Each structure stands twice: as structure tokens, then as C-alpha cells.
């Protein structure tokens, strides 16, 4: 119970005021005091309180004086109000909606939104281009993005065909022999690749060669891809390889990762091309797609 709580006295006070008397006192209306002379002092005090509002208006603050000028608008007062409010450590009142539209602070807010939108758009574009480069998007989308990027920038994004070619597969449209043009096809694990070489793997009719075996004639410039005796890996879109020639004597295969051994030349074999110099073994998984 607070020291101001006089509820208990209000209950049983014989001099308690009724609402009508209280209203008359507060409104300054004449009150029939009669036996209530105790209210005369209250009535006089209320009259003195009322005089407090009859004083002249106090001088306005500089910010308000700026607003009260004849040539001042509400917007000017908004600009002038902020330093005064900040100097007293209070938050300024919210401006009206019309003022808010013209507020420089909110214009900068729009700029901020535009900047955020620009950053988001840039991040999205970077993500799409990155996903395209990482081959994570569906092929049609990837083609579209790759074409846009390649037309707008000097970047060259490898498409799905570049990436999906198994190592050593010769593009039939490439007269130079595709992967064989660098001559490393014969250095496949297992020594596969050169049909003229006795180190070539045993022919696999129908393309049954193990992965990583070059089906064409790597290392043999000018040899047609899929020629008889070529490895026999089935390439989609290409006719099946014809039946192989006479079986070659079995040649021990070389395990991947082991040092390459130069295959001996079989006497009597048709020398179609000089045997490429031995090259270090290359893991197929480490191969980088050839530049286009």
C-alpha cells in the first residue's frame, strides 16, 4: 500500500466528494459549499492551478522557431529537430509519412536496399557460374549459362561433352586422332592402345575392354578410330567395332602405377608407326580434359 493510497479513507469518509461535486470543482463551476466550507480552499487552489495555463506562451526552441516561421515547412523542422533531440539524449519523434518519404535518411535506406539487392544478384550470378563450371547444373541450363559466359567473358567453361569423354576416347570427328595426337595413348596402364604393338591388350569384341583402355589407335597418327584391332571400347553413336583380327599372343598386363615397360617389338609385325618413347604412367583419373 503506497502512502498515497487513501482508498480506505475514501470508503468511510463522511466528507468524501461525490462525482458531481468533484466535477464542478475541477471545471471551475460554482459549488454550493453550504456545510462544506472545507472545500473553499480546494476551490481556490483549483482556480490558481487554472491560472497556470493563462501565462503567455514560452519562447520556442530554435528548432521550433524555425518551424514557426512563415516561410518554413514541416520538412525544415524535421531537419532542425534532430540536433535538438539528440542533444537531450532523446529519440526524436517519428516524422509523418509524407515527411518520411522525403527524409534523407530514408533515401539512404533505399540506397542501402539497392546495394543489398546488387550484392545478392552478384552472389547469385557467381553461384550459377560456379555451379556451371563445376558441372552441377542440368545440361540444358549449363549450356545456356556457358554460352552466355563465353560470349560475355573470355572464360571458357568446359561443357558436359568435354567432361564426360572417357580418357583416351577418340572423337571420331577429330581427324587428328583426339587423345592420340599427343601420343600418350599407348602408355595406358596395361600397355593398351597400339594395335600394331604386341603390348596391346587382347581384343575385346563388342567393346569389352576395361576402362582406361584406349579404343582407337593412340600414338598412331592418322589411324582411323575404331579400326580393326583398336581397343574396342564402344562409343555411343559409333558403329560397333568389327571382328578383331587374329588373336595376338597374350601379353602380361602391367598394373596401374607400375613403371612402364617398353614393349618388345614383334618381328614381322607391320611397322605402322614408330613406337613412341616411353612416358611415365599417368593415372586416368588424373587426366585433364584436353583443351578445345
Amino acid at each position, binding site marked *: 500500500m*503506497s502512502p*498515497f*493510497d*487513501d*482508498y480506505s479513507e*475514501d470508503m468511510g*469518509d463522511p*466528507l*468524501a*466528494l461525490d*462525482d458531481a461535486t*468533484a*466535477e464542478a*470543482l*475541477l471545471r471551475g463551476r460554482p459549488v454550493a459549499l453550504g456545510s462544506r466550507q*472545507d*472545500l473553499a*480552499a*480546494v476551490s481556490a*487552489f483549483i*482556480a*490558481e*492551478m*487554472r*491560472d*497556470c*495555463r*493563462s*501565462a*503567455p*506562451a*514560452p*519562447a*520556442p*526552441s530554435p*528548432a*521550433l522557431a524555425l*518551424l*514557426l*516561421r*512563415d*516561410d*518554413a*515547412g*514541416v*520538412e525544415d*523542422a524535421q531537419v532542425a*529537430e534532430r540536433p*535538438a*533531440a539528440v542533444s*537531450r*539524449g*532523446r529519440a526524436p*519523434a*517519428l*516524422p*509523418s*509519412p*509524407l*515527411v518520411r518519404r522525403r527524409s534523407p535518411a530514408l533515401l539512404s535506406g533505399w540506397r542501402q536496399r539497392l546495394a543489398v539487392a546488387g550484392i545478392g544478384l552478384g552472389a547469385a550470378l557467381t553461384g550459377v557460374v560456379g555451379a556451371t563450371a563445376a558441372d552441377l547444373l542440368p545440361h540444358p541450363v549449363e549450356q545456356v549459362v556457358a554460352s552466355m559466359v563465353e560470349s560475355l567473358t573470355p572464360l571458357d567453361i568446359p561443357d558436359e561433352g568435354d567432361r564426360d569423354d572417357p580418357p583416351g576416347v577418340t572423337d571420331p570427328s577429330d581427324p587428328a586422332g583426339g587423345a592420340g595426337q599427343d601420343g600418350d595413348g599407348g602408355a595406358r596402364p596395361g600397355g593398351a592402345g597400339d594395335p600394331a604393338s604386341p603390348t596391346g591388350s587382347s581384343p575385346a569384341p563388342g567393346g569389352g575392354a576395361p576402362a582406361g583402355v584406349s579404343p582407337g589407335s593412340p600414338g598412331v597418327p592418322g589411324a582411323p578410330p575404331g579400326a580393326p584391332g583398336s581397343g574396342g571400347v564402344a562409343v555411343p553413336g559409333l558403329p560397333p567395332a568389327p571382328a578383331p583380327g587374329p588373336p595376338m599372343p597374350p601379353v602380361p598386363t602391367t598394373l596401374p602405377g607400375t613403371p612402364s615397360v617398353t614393349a618388345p617389338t614383334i618381328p614381322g609385325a607391320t611397322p605402322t608407326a614408330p613406337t613412341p618413347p616411353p612416358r611415365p604412367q599417368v593415372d586416368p583419373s588424373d587426366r585433364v580434359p584436353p583443351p578445345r
Partner: protein
Amino acid sequence: MSLGLGFDDVLGAARQGAGWACSRLYESLAPAVAGYARAQGAQDPEDLTSEVFLAVFSGIRSFSGDEAHFRSWVFTIAHRRVIDDRRARTRRPPPRSLEAEPVPERRGTSSQSAEDDALGAMGMERVRTVLAKLSPDQRDVIALRVIGDLSVEQAAAALGKQPGAVKTLQRRALATLRRQLSAQGVSL
């Protein structure tokens, strides 16, 4: 001071940012607002009055109503500023007593004589001394009803209370004043 029949025109011009209209509104209500701030023991009543009217003119475009509603709206803002001032004073290190607080000198009262100023200051000081005996809620109700000239319903809206609660508070406030003034034997 009441603007009467020209209130709508003045309000419309003030909405457009006309300085003369804002001046009319300020002159009509600023004395009462300043008196309300003084009666509540505000630290700087004149500055508080200016802040109230800056807030009023900032939001005047969204206001709609007659002069009584406008007055009620202005005193609602004034009451909130007084509450802010009261809270700020309680946070400041040397708390100043409401009774011991000197009445600040009035600014811009060149039309009044020094004697009137002195009498007004003495009367204001007495008013503040007596009102300090009331609880904050009772003081709010009495000040809004007498100095703000608000009705029970308008005071209730400004204070966020029910009209019945306002009536109870004003009845108790008057009873307290009666006891205080009788005990002091002060002849006002």
C-alpha cells in the same frame, strides 16, 4: 485560448506546413502545455514544451478531428514527454526534490511586468508544492483535467486508463488536497 470556428482552416494550413498556422496552434496551446509541465515538476518546462510541439507538427498530417480532439492529442503527447522527463530525472545522480526545485524563469514574456512574473512564479511554486503531496497518478489526473482542460474521457485516453479509474483518482486527489490544505491552513 481557443481557436474556435477557424480551427479547421488553421489545422489545414498547418498540415501544409504554413508557419503562421503552426504559430497560431502553438500560441493557443503552448501556455497550457508549459503550465502542465511546470505543475508536473519538469526539469525544463520550456524545452519540454518545444519538444511537444515539434512532435505535434511532425505528426499533424496524420491527425484528424476537431479542436477538442486536437487539444486532447497534444496533451497526450505532453503527458508522455513528462513521463520521459520523470524517468530521466530518476536516473540522474543527484535527485532533485519536486518541492525544492526552483521555478525557471519564463522566456518570451516581455509583455508581462516583472511583478506579474514574480506573482506567477510564486503561485506556480505553491501549486507545485501542493501537487507534490499527491501520488503521481492523482497528480496526472488533476493536472490534465484542470490545466489541460480535458474531460474525464479524454484524460482517461491520455493516461491509458478507464474513465471510472480516472473518476476515482480525481475524487481521492481532491480529498487529499482538502486534507492537506486544511492542515496547512493556507489561504490561497
